[in-house]
């Protein structure tokens, strides 16, 4: 698969005739990473699919205004993260239930999810993650599963590196404690 640099994507996207082709390459280049990032937050495949489409639609419309101050990859992650948070907040408002209940519901959904193939330990880990505050869950996912640098995470989440390290540390402690108690 042909991969373009950020500069090439910006330049070629500006040409109307190339737009669809470049956008198709962008989708192919980032779809999997973004999908798994979203899926870890939303758990459900259909929800994740909807949000991933929204992310690329937003990127398509915003790309002409993208000035290259950040990397396209962190920019896309930022859009995806915001979409996930908005989605979870909407879900909470729709059912008039606190956030912890939404996550409790997601935790139950894992058990009946036909697209979850993990063993008992992996299921316990996902359930432990769902007990974390939203931001800690994001930090843990990005650091542990995606092995993202703190500097990139800082750009995506708008939080200092020090605060992210502390957040990750707290997340690990809480997960360990959850796994020991169950």
């Amino acid at each position, binding site marked *: 698969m042909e991969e373009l640099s950020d500069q090439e994507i910006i330049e070629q996207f500006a040409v109307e005739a190339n737009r669809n082709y470049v956008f198709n390459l962008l989708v192919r280049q980032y779809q999997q990473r973004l*999908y798994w990032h979203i899926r870890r937050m939303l758990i459900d495949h259909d929800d994740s699919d909807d949000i991933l489409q929204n992310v*690329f639609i937003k990127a398509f419309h915003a790309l002409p205004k993208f000035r290259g101050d950040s990397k396209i990859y962190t920019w896309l992650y930022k859009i995806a993260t915001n979409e996930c948070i908005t989605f979870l907040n909407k879900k909470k408002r729709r059912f008039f239930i606190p956030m912890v209940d939404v996550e409790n519901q997601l935790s139950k959904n894992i058990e009946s999810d036909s697209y979850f193939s993990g063993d008992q330990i992996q299921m316990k880990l996902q359930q432990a993650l769902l007990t974390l505050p939203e931001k800690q869950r994001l930090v843990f996912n990005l650091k542990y599963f995606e092995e993202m640098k703190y500097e990139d995470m800082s750009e995506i989440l708008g939080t200092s590196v020090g605060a992210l390290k502390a957040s990750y540390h707290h997340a690990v402690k809480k997960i360990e404690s959850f796994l020991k108690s169950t």
Partner: protein
Amino acid sequence: MQEQENNKLNQPVFPKENPFKVPDGYFDRFPSRMNDRIADEKITFKFPFPSLLKPAPIIAFASIAVFIGIYTLNVFRTNSDTLTDEEVSTYVYQEGIIDEVELDEIIEYSEVAVADTSTRQENESSEIEKYLLDEDIDLNDIINEL
């Protein structure tokens, strides 16, 4: 190097494998689905301010529109109701409803009528006084009867 090794030692030992699955061929189909969505987006007109399409702003704008409508109508109606004397006389002349002589008569009559009202009141008082004197009626009798 030392820092990397420390980091490795500090790494928690949770399973790292991805436990989630996607439907078969999902990532193969996704780019073409995205192209279709983009094509649809280009065709479908989207109102640029979707938040204004929510019920609350619609009701607010409708109320403002109704208020402005009523206010505007009233302003025009008030203006049409308050014609100046000059406008009335010009209209009357131009339309030939009455000629100049008739209009003068009307004005004269209306002035006389106004003057007449005050003089009539004065006349009535003096007539009563004269009657009382002629008939030799004591004013105290009338007051007592009242």
